[in-house]
């Protein structure tokens, strides 16, 4: 299998504090990968670097082994096929649930194309399909602001899927969800792997167990260890910095 995303010795500091410190990580095409680590370990910052929001001080970030992601901005990374779900769910509150999905759909992103855009039947069908998948079909005409925290998480997952990205970066998706919803999210993400590459950041150990995938443990901006969940949870260093607390 080919490496889809490669972080090669990436470092980035904020006011002297090394949020990311010589971080190397390779994720294969179609892989599902969980990234765990205590608060402040640099998980979100890592996603910021992959999506061009934050530039690394040193090191390389490679897409498909050819494209240098450190030279690309947020919109550029999205256009390459990198979709992102944020830790704090961010949906467009004044737009309806349906419009949130419609605006995320994979389509031409230029000013002129959107000015003259007319929704096609295929797009309408895809919107309905996605709304059913995230169980928001009944709320499609409500403003997104009216949704509960958990529903917003689902809407954002729907928006992410609407983009049909090659790589999904999912930051703490289970926050604010019930146990049943958490399991359903894990199931959904597993079903996406293979066709998509998925990187999930999460704190919830039951959730990570349900993902049943390779786990990377991040600590102080550096990879502590990598392997199956059982393997990493047996590592004394990991127990000390994270699991043992």
């Amino acid at each position: 299998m080919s490496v889809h995303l490669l972080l090669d010795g990436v470092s980035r500091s904020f006011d002297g504090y090394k949020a990311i410190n010589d971080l190397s990580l390779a994720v294969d095409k179609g892989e599902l990968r969980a990234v765990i680590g205590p608060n402040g370990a640099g998980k979100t910052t890592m996603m910021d670097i992959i999506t061009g929001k934050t530039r690394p001080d040193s090191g390389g970030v490679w897409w498909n082994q050819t494209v240098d992601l450190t030279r690309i901005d947020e919109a550029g990374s999205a256009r390459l096929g990198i979709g992102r779900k944020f830790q704090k769910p961010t949906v467009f509150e004044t737009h309806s649930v349906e419009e949130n999905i419609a605006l995320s759909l994979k389509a031409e992103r230029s000013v002129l194309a959107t000015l003259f855009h007319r929704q096609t039947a295929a797009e309408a069908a895809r919107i309905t399909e996605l709304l059913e998948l995230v169980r928001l079909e009944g709320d499609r005409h409500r403003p997104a602001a009216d949704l509960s925290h958990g529903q917003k998480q689902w809407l954002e997952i729907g928006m992410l899927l609407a983009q049909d990205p090659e790589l999904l970066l999912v930051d703490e998706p289970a926050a604010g969800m019930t146990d049943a919803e958490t399991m359903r999210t894990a199931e959904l993400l597993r079903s996406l792997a293979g066709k998509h590459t998925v990187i999930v950041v999460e704190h919830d150990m039951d959730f990570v167990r349900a993902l049943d995938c390779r786990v990377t443990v991040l600590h102080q901006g550096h990879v502590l260890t990598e392997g199956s969940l059982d393997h990493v949870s047996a590592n004394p260093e990991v127990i000390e910095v994270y699991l043992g607390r």
Partner: protein
Amino acid sequence: MTSLIDRRMGIFLAGLFVLTVAVPIGNLAFEGKVVPSYIVSLLGKYLCYALLAVALDLVWGFCGILSLGHGAFFALGGYAMGMHLMREIGDRGVYANPDLPDFMVFLSWDQLPWFWMGFDNFWFASLMVMLVPGALAFLFGWFAFRSRVTGVYLSIITQAMTYALQLAFFRNEMGFGGNNGLTDFKDVLGFPLQSDATRAGLFVCTAIALAAGLLIARAITTSKLGMILVCIRDAESRTRFMGYRVEGYKLFIFVVSAMMAGVAGALYTPQVGIINPGEFSPANSIEIVIWVALGGRGTLVGAALGAILVALAKTLFTGWFPEFWLFALGGLFILVTLFLPKGVLGLIEDTFARKKKPAPALQEAKA
């Protein structure tokens, strides 16, 4: 999809249509006894302000760009039209110089500066009315939006832009008539500006421009692009991660808005009879923001209504107590921001909605 002409737009356009028919008839058919001539030009001026307010609402109400320099685009449009009107004076000026406007003769210039070339032609001038403000907005937006200048910082530099232009236009050497500006116009396209028929014609043109401006703005804001503008307003960073190049969208709407403001300025100059650097004053630009906030931000029709209401209030108020106008305006603004977050239009619509559907408490009491 949302319809182009919703209820509020329909009602406003119907009202505007009635005004467009009634005002000229009331003036021309009754020799100014029903609608005096000065009222025609005054109403025309209000409609110019309304179009300017719609332009600002496009960028501020829908895209969150609080421009405090829109008066500059309006003034540039006004100057472009004013330059044509100066050329149309020909040799009927005080110095009777067929080649140069009076102020240039006074400065002992012996030839027309290059940037006055072409303004003899009405259509060239009409093009410049949109192109000059559009080009300035493009240049300004290109640098500001690419460097991701937003919020208060953007507002401050727009304010600085209009102030810098005001200082520049005050200078005689700039070639725009210095602090006197451009005035003493005689006619437009051969029609004398002092005649009632011309004034009525200009009024009708302004009403048509306002209707067209509203419809264009509505078409843009109900399109997919319009929805993306709102995304940018509410969560700019998130919009980028969806693959939209925010700079491009901002630049587009800023340029469209500046052109619309330019048209408003061009219609203003012949009806008021003068354009001078005062139009660039920072306070003017702030007043536009007040119109929009007062009428109802992000509603287009509300912005137009706000401009007309404030302009009307200003006319009445400055007649009664001229010294207190600015205090009254400031007070009004504070009241609206505190008590009417959706502006006057929101108040009107809420009142009607309540009348149609009795409040739940009332229904319970009846049951």
